[in-house]
Each structure stands twice: as structure tokens, then as C-alpha cells.
């Protein structure tokens, strides 16, 4: 399957799962909102130019926003995640070993440790910005902090589960092929 088709299917699936499964889960607690859809941005291939990444982040957020009737909220957070992604990848991986051997960020390619750190930083960034924007209109600072932490914890749990359930088989790229 080509990259384009694969990622389009992924985007649709992530949005649908977010809107019709994760948002339909009976209310657990006011601090806990399960988010997973932005994993789409985390899973994009290494080779995408930074401008393309920004555009895809914008698109992904906007799609979700129109479903959730909060135009701009998730868009802003997604654009931030898409902008920060290359920096985090540069920090966490040695260019020669992973980026050329593997196609996209994954626990198998980067190792569980660096991958989880990568996911954690971007998750925290996404949730801080999102919750910050939401609570600009409403709420106190302590609530904001608790909500960011709780939501991040839930999201990390979800990402971990997804990575275990759906390991992406990727070819190890070599010069010989």
C-alpha cells in the first residue's frame, strides 16, 4: 500500500474512533478526556517536509473540530504538535541509524524508551495547549494542571495499548535491495 493511501485511511480511522468511540465513552470524570487522534501526526513518515507536516496537522485538527463543534480548538493544538515534531525527533534519534533504516516513528524503529519519550513530550504539548485554550474561558489554575496531567496519563495509556495491539510491521531498509 502506498504511503498516501495508508495515511488517508489512518486519518479517517483515527477521526472516526475519536468521535464515535472515545467521545461516546460514558463520562468517567471531569478531568479525564481520552484523546488519541493526534497519533496520526506522530505516525507520519520521517520523509514528509515540514510544511507538509504543518498542513496535515491543520487538516487533521480541523476535521475533528468540525465533528466536535469546536472550530479552531484542536486545530491549534495539532498545528503546534506538527511544528514541534521534527525538533523532538532530532533530539531523540541519531540521524544515521533510524531515519534511514525505518520509515516512520515506531517503538520498533526507535526503541521503546525514546519512542515513549517522543510520544510523551508531544502528548503533553498537545494537552497543555488544548486544555489551556479551553480553560482560558473558564476555571482555575489548579484544575488546569490536574486536567493536563490526568488527560496525558490516559492518552499515554491509550498510545501504549495501541502500539502493543497494532504493531506496525516495517521493513528494515538496507542498501542491498
Amino acid at each position, binding site marked *: 500500500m502506498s504511503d498516501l493511501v495508508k495515511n488517508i485511511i489512518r486519518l479517517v480511522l483515527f477521526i472516526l474512533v475519536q468521535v464515535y468511540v472515545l467521545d461516546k465513552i*460514558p463520562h468517567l470524570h*471531569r478531568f479525564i478526556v481520552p484523546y488519541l487522534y493526534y497519533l496520526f501526526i506522530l505516525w507520519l513518515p520521517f520523509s514528509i517536509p*515540514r510544511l507538509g507536516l504543518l498542513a496535515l496537522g491543520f487538516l487533521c485538527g480541523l476535521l475533528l473540530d468540525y465533528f466536535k*463543534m469546536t472550530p*479552531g480548538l484542536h486545530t*491549534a493544538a495539532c*498545528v503546534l504538535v506538527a511544528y514541534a515534531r521534527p525538533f523532538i525527533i532530532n533530539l531523540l534519534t541519531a540521524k544515521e541509524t533510524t531515519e534511514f533504516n525505518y520509515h516512520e516513528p515506531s517503538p520498533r524503529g526507535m526503541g521503546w524508551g525514546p519512542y515513549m519519550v517522543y510520544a510523551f513530550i508531544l502528548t503533553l504539548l498537545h494537552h497543555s495547549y488544548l486544555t489551556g485554550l479551553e480553560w482560558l474561558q473558564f476555571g482555575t489554575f489548579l484544575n488546569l494542571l490536574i486536567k493536563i496531567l490526568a488527560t496525558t496519563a490516559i492518552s499515554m495509556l491509550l498510545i501504549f495499548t495501541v502500539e502493543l495491539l497494532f504493531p506496525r510491521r516495517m521493513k528494515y531498509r538496507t542498501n542491498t535491495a
Partner: protein
Amino acid sequence: MRNVFLFIQRYFVFLVFLILQGIALWMLFSYNRFHQAAFLGIASEVTGTINTRVDKVDDYFHLSEENRRLHRMNDSLLNTLQSNFVKTDTSAKLVTDSTRFDTVAAIRRYLSRDAKVVYNSVNRENNYLQLNRGAVGGIRDNMAVINSAGEAVGVVVNVSPNFSQVMSLLHVKSRVTAAIKKTGDYGTLEWDARDPRLLTLKGIPRNVEVKQGDTVITSVYSYNFPPGFMVGTVAAIQTEKASGFYLLKVRTAVNFNSIQQVFVVENLQRNEQLKLEQDTEQKIEQKK
């Protein structure tokens, strides 16, 4: 000049990032203020169709509860039938006059239309519902929404041709006038974004006698909601220390997790009421 171009070239990605952020934030804040956003009309047509399809499946999981609500509503209507009442005075003959050309003819104030909820959320600070009836079906902004058991749900804030969006009572900006049924004292119903089962009723003075379990209904002073519809029951009684008003926690009658069929109620005299209010204000201003 060359430096400017060099600068743009060097920070092009960052500039694009800032522009996209700007667009997103502009959409967000303009939506929060006016409940209207770019392309939301077209977008809600698309999301509405998908929502309708998903909702068809989702319906089956709430059928029994919905059935029970409907049955109860039917029961309450059945009890109002004229044939239930016996005239003790046998010499009197009951005639129901159906002509409307009487000087004391009733004027219709509220008109309700049925609709189906296709999208609904409870787990955010700003919760909205989406209905499968829009401007083509006669829905306009500010109409009240009640569920199939006649319990207040929210107010329409935005319409597209075939769908409409409702600000649920579970929205931090929702303000609905509600009253204690027993005494008739009214206050403002708000939500503090904590528990989707509890609303807050503010503005009831301390001298009113309120007990736990008292019924809260929509007030006669509301421009949107028809009076007398159930909102919930008083769950806890607190007092605001500063103002000397009660801070009543109201347990909602509606289970916001399982709303399916709703009625959209239009106040046909709303515009007249608003105009009168504005005119009055103007008149008072001029006199000063």
C-alpha cells in the same frame, strides 16, 4: 530588501506555523463569541450525514429507555383528556367550540417540532448536540429543546439547512431562567463543568423555603423555554456567603447520555417580546 527575503526564506516554516495558529485561534475565539465559524454550515451538513448514519446504530442501545419515556409522556397526555372528567352538574351540556373567530380566542404562543439527536457530548466544558432538522425544517436560533419526556435539554445556537446545533444545559455559557415549582421563585440555571448530572441554580433569595428534592421547572419569564417543563430536582442546598442567595445544586431530570428524540419549541412571540423590551429601553433612555 534582500535581507527581508533572506529572513522570510530562513523562517518560512515558522511563519507558516504562526499563520496557521492565527487562523485556528481566530476561528476559535470568533466561534466562542458568536457561535458561528467559517464553513461550519457546510461542514455540519457533512458531519450531520455521518452522524445520522452512526446514530442509526446507536439508537438500538437506548430503545427501551426511550420507549419508557415516551410511554410516560403519553400517559401524562392521556390524563388531560376531557373524557376523563365528569360534570357533576347534569343539566349542563358540554360544547367544545372549535372556531377561532371568538374575541377571547387563544393565541398560539409555543409551537413544537420533533427532531432526532444525531450527535451529543457530555464530557467537555462546552457540550453541544446536533439535531437532524435545520433551517429548511423551520428551526431558528434561540429555540428551546426539550426531550421526549418534556424535560429541558438546551437552546438552539446555530442552524444549517438540514441540521441544527444545540447548546446543551451542560455548557459553561448556558444561562436558563428556571424556577422552584413550589414557590415560583426564579433564578438562573448554570453549569460549573464538573458533574454532568448536576446544574447550579443561582439567585434564589435566602428567605425562600427550599428543601431537598424540590422540583425545578422552566420559568414563565424565559423567552426561549415554555413554562412548566421539568428541569430537575434540588440535590443539595448551599449558600453564597457574599450575596445572601442560595446556591442550589440541581440534579437534572434529563439523562444527557441517552437523549434521542427531542422537541424543538418555538416561542412565536419571542421577537415581539424582545422588541418591546428594546423599545422600552430606548424610551427610558430618551426621557433622561
